[in-house]
């Protein structure tokens, strides 16, 4: 028996020796990058952490395009308070653990600002790490849970679910007077947030949903719950799910003969929703979104043109959110004239206000900068703004 143990022990020792030196090496090498002293600071280092694969890949892609467009524009005009903006993209693969790991990597490599992530769950996983390291975190997630952490370093670049759904409920129940409302939401972080927010708004207006179906985020075949919704004969159907699933729900609802008006928050405003649902099923969908279309005003038209020229795609909400986010950070950094630190940037972002594509940004102490959305309706493939329902 002893020979066996000898060879085993020595084999493990040799290998662990090699491996731990590898870990040490990779640790030391990546740590070095961020050691530039703050006085001679020439660049503002921004880490963009978001999904590049899996279900949420499109969200990650739009964030990246919005931030990069803004960065290039700012750098062309001499950078943020003289600092050249440098973006480093990291893929969290739509998994909170990887998101947490990358947040620690950002802290370890002393990034100044972190953009991420597009999903509320991953942003929530990153929040304690970045806040602990006093690094400002700008997220395109909109779950209310993000604001409940009472962090001074979290900044949502879009209104919270409550705001989306308050505007929506006000228009659907108040303006259109629809009473028989059915709800179908997935139990992912976004879907659950939308479900609770919209239900609260309905209760406030004394309306009880005629049907309230919850499905898993990856379910694709919804004929079971939809057929029950059809029996309830609703005249409005609220959807709380990501772009792709919302599209599938709309398509399957129409093919099951449900003709209720479809009512949803931001996802319904994206090209991906319309493409998945098909123009016919998407027709007439009521959308609550802070960025209804590209030709709201002069600023949005310029943004849409620059976006089209840079990426050959039509701009939409998520790109606009990220663009506003970086413009805001740049304005905050400019106001610091040189003394750049995590704390200073965060404090500046609370102090200043900014008129962006999505509206007037003025951050409260829990990280919400925008509290207003607009109502739009999808007509033959385009989102048209209804009169201001704000």
């Amino acid at each position, binding site marked *: 028996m002893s020979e066996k143990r000898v060879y085993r022990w020595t084999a493990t020792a040799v290998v662990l020796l090699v491996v731990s030196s590898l870990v040490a090496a990779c640790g030391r090498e990546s740590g070095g990058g961020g050691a530039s002293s703050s006085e001679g600071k020439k660049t503002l280092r921004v880490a963009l952490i978001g999904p590049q694969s*899996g279900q949420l*890949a499109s969200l990650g892609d739009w964030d990246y395009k919005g931030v990069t467009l803004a960065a290039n524009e700012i750098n062309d005009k001499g950078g943020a308070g003289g600092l050249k903006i440098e973006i480093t993209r990291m893929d969290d693969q739509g998994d909170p653990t990887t998101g947490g790991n990358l947040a620690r990597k950002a802290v370890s490599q002393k990034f100044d600002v972190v953009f991420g992530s597009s999903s509320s769950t991953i942003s929530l996983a990153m929040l304690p790490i970045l806040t602990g390291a006093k690094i400002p975190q700008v997220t395109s997630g909109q779950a209310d849970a993000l604001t409940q952490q009472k962090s001074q370093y979290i900044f949502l670049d879009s209104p919270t679910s409550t705001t989306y759904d308050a505007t929506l409920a006000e228009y659907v129940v108040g303006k259109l007077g629809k009473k028989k409302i059915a709800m179908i939401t997935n139990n992912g972080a976004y879907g659950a947030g939308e479900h609770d927010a919209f239900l609260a708004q309905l209760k406030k207006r004394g309306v009880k949903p005629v049907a309230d179906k919850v499905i898993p985020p990856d379910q694709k*075949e919804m*004929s*079971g719950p939809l*057929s*029950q919704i059809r029996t309830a004969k609703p005249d409005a159907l609220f959807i709380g799910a990501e772009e792709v699933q919302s599209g599938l729900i709309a398509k399957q609802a129409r*093919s*099951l003969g449900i003709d209720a008006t479809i009512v949803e928050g931001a996802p319904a405003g994206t090209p991906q929703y319309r493409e*998945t649902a098909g123009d016919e099923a998407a027709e007439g969908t009521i959308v609550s979104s802070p960025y209804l279309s590209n030709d709201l005003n002069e600023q949005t038209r310029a943004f849409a043109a620059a976006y089209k020229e840079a990426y050959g795609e039509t701009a939409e909400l998520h790109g606009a959110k990220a663009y506003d986010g970086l413009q805001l950070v740049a304005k905050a950094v400019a106001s610091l004239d040189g003394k750049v630190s995590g704390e200073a940037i965060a404090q500046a972002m609370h102090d200043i206000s900014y008129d962006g594509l999505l509206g007037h940004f003025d951050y409260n102490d829990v990280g919400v900068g925008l509290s207003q959305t607009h109502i739009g309706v999808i007509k033959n493939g385009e989102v048209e703004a209804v009169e201001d329902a704000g």
Partner: protein
Amino acid sequence: MDLREILQTGVGGLSIGAVYALVALGFSIVYRTIGLVNFGHGDVLMVGAFLMVTFFVNSHLAFPLALVIAVALTATMGFGFERVLRPLERKDLDLMLIGTIGFGIALEGAAVLIWGSEGQAMPTPINDTPINLAGVTVRSYDVLVLVLAAAVVVGLYLFLERAKAGTAMQAAAMDHEAATAMGIDVARCNGRAFAIGAGIAAVAGALVGPRLYVSAGMGAAVGVKGFAAAILGGFGNIPGAIVGGLALGLIEAYASGSRGSYSDVITFVVFTAVIMLRPSGLLGERTVSRP
């Protein structure tokens, strides 16, 4: 749930069940002839679906033509896949398990490289007008799915029962030594079986494309359910795969109908109960002749 709803959910269950049946068929035919449990089979379906997107959606070919091209291409790749996985055939299960999972991961990576990570929606080939049958709405595309699935099953049955090559393939599965003595080239039969399995997966991918959303990750979920369906029906048993697929589709539909978010829980708990009661599945396992 009143009667109408029960029937409506049932129709939905059958349409997704038909897809699970096709996936299960792919699993069973490869297992029956080669003794290989290919956990990457879901990803072969994904490749088929992406080929449909390329030919039917992007290059606007007619649906039947695009379908034939996609199936032919995936089936030819099937021969190649079999060559890659041949060292794993008839090996013990753990190596086969992780080997084919690795193969699936590689396929997913390749799909991301070729078709991008976002994936694409696929319109239904015929306009999906609802047909009203005594209060129960049946989506016309569901009918097409059931018809095409039935056609594949009949085609496979005819090939196995009538065609000489099909009979030879069955013989090779039942007794590969006696088959060799009769002059049957068992190795080529295995390649052909894998190609047929891949072709059927391509059909399933094409049919499920409009229903789900074609993306690199779509294979895994459908793969697990398809494999469960194959086992439920009786692994390696061709009629069993069809019964298992439809049964699993119905279980899932009724589970998601009643307790919505717990549908996966109910589906797999019922599946475990059936397997515990009848370990060899509803119609009995047909194993391959392991040497």
